[in-house]
């Protein structure tokens, strides 16, 4: 006995599978541009180039990478960069967001003007900051290179060497160029972080603040016990955003310092470029890329966890 089930019309199948067809193009693009290259990088990290082609070398690329002195140095630079970048940006972002929340006259104008740095490309931002301190001719070089203000010989940000490290080989007192790079990067990221924090501050309910104030809490207590706990999740999301941007952003290093002076502003993303396209060691660069990707994935997973906890709470 054949099944007597009536055949469903084509339009039914089409409707059922519509989401699939809508998502398919996106998936194809993402697989070609994101997934396949990621897998290829894993393969590449175990290869070395020879005259005839690629050859399997196992973990040699990683060993060689760890063997160079430049790798730990760049990691040190990255740690310093990220710490300074996050500290400066989150602190200033918080302060500016609180100021903006007071709704004084012209707040709209201030917000618009404050956000211009965010819209400017990292390569242009780097160049703008470079113009200000170009040796001899930059606008601030006259002040910075004045020996009376910066003994003994004045300070030339783009060429001054790094002071002797305090802790072994960790490049701790960073070179002036690194501090300047942190400033420039923070300048560009600050608007975004400010906006995030401001958006979170707007959700802090007025009633809660008012009742705490009636109970006698002062401004510091209000900030410490109400505002900060309520916007903490946003601060954490902002922090991870900063970390991801900081680890992967390389344009500013290109146009501001070019990694120099010497190697004092080599961050790992710039090191990747140097190993890959400077030394043409793509296998070793792929090994480094995998390490960077691993850190990225850890950050992303943390964000996913935190935001999910957020959703559950709401």
């Amino acid at each position: 006995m054949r099944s007597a089930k009536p055949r469903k019309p084509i339009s039914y199948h089409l409707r059922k599978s519509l989401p699939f067809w809508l998502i398919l193009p996106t998936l194809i693009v993402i697989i070609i541009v994101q997934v396949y290259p990621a897998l290829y990088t894993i393969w590449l990290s175990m290869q070395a180039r020879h005259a005839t082609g690629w050859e399997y070398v196992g973990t040699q690329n990683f060993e060689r990478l760890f063997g160079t002195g430049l790798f730990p140095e760049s990691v040190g630079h990255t740690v310093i960069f990220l710490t300074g970048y996050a500290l400066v940006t989150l602190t200033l972002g918080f302060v500016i967001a609180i100021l903006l929340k007071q709704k004084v006259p012209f707040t709209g104008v201030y917000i618009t003007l404050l956000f211009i740095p965010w819209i400017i490309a990292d390569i242009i931002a780097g160049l703008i900051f470079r113009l200000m301190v170009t040796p001899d001719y930059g606008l601030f070089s006259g002040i910075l290179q004045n020996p009376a203000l910066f003994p003994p010989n004045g300070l030339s940000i783009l060429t001054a060497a790094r002071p002797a490290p305090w802790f072994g080989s960790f490049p701790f007192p960073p070179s002036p160029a690194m501090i300047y790079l942190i400033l420039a990067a923070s300048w560009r990221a600050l608007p975004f972080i400010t906006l995030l924090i401001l958006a979170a501050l707007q959700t802090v309910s007025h009633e809660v603040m008012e009742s705490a104030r009636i109970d006698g809490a002062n401004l510091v207590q209000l900030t410490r016990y109400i505002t900060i706990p309520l916007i903490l999740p946003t601060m954490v999301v902002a922090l991870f955003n900063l970390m991801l941007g900081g680890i992967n952003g390389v344009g500013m290093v290109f146009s501001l310092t070019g990694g120099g002076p010497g190697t004092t502003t080599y961050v790992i993303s710039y090191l990747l470029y140097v190993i890959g396209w400077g030394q043409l060691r793509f296998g070793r660069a792929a090994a480094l890329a995998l390490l960077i990707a691993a850190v990225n994935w850890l950050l992303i997973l943390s964000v996913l966890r935190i935001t999910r906890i957020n959703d559950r709470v709401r």
Partner: protein
Amino acid sequence: MTKNFYLNRRIWKRRLVGLALLVITVISIFPIATTILVSFKQQADITRKPPVIFPCDTPTQKFDIKACRWSVEGYQRVLAPKPDEGSLFGFKFTGNLLRIYIPNTLMYAFSTAFFVTLLASFSGFAFSRYHFRGHNALMAAIYAVTGVPLLTNILALYQMSITLRKNVGFFDDRMFLVFVYLGFFLPISVWIAKGFFDTIPRELEESALLAGCSTLGALFRITMPLALPGLISVFLLTFVNVWNEFIVAYLLVTKNEYKPAMFGLYDFLSQNIINLQVLAAACIIIAAPIVILFLFARKIFFKAMVEGAVKG
């Protein structure tokens, strides 16, 4: 009396906040202001030691507003205008920036933003309206992809471009670049678009379906028009991201006539390391369109930014 005192304190507090904001705004605009200043100087004033802030000093006076030597030399050297009979204003610009790089950037940014918006609206709609098997996992996977560093993939994409250039006849740097940008900016756009679709009430579509509209008809006649403001912000955000992007184009584009503006600017940097006014002028020319766009459409940008960051 006490009431007055508190009122006074309140007014003073607000004035202080306003002052603080003013100072912060001035400081944050300062680097841009100095760049504009530098771009209008002459070569002779740029290379003076020690540098002068305003090129307005005379042998006798430190600052004389009438003696200012402003010039557009930097812009002239970037744009390189040459007399030309047939043009509208009697001359045409022959500098590479305006002739090659900015048109390229416009083309890359427009086509990427268009395709990103199209695909993101399709999949954003699907993710927002249907709950199929693996819905959440797929959404999470697409989010996770946004965290894959561009630099990791660029190694493989670079090798891919080399292979394709060798083996595929119709391969074109520009096509490949737009496709790569599409892949980079699509994941976050899908999330943003889904967020916008979530805010549109389902009942509108359902009533259209009941009235005899097809599913795709409901999508294009009801939902898309309502989601348009959100989709425009996805478009603008992608446009700006592509306009500002440097490293991918730097590594993937091989021909001079395909270079986008940021790549051209980087070339300028190596050629004009000492001609600060030329560099500054090039920066201003490239950044101005985006800044103007932002000033006119800032609400749209903020919407997409917050949506992308908080949801993600």
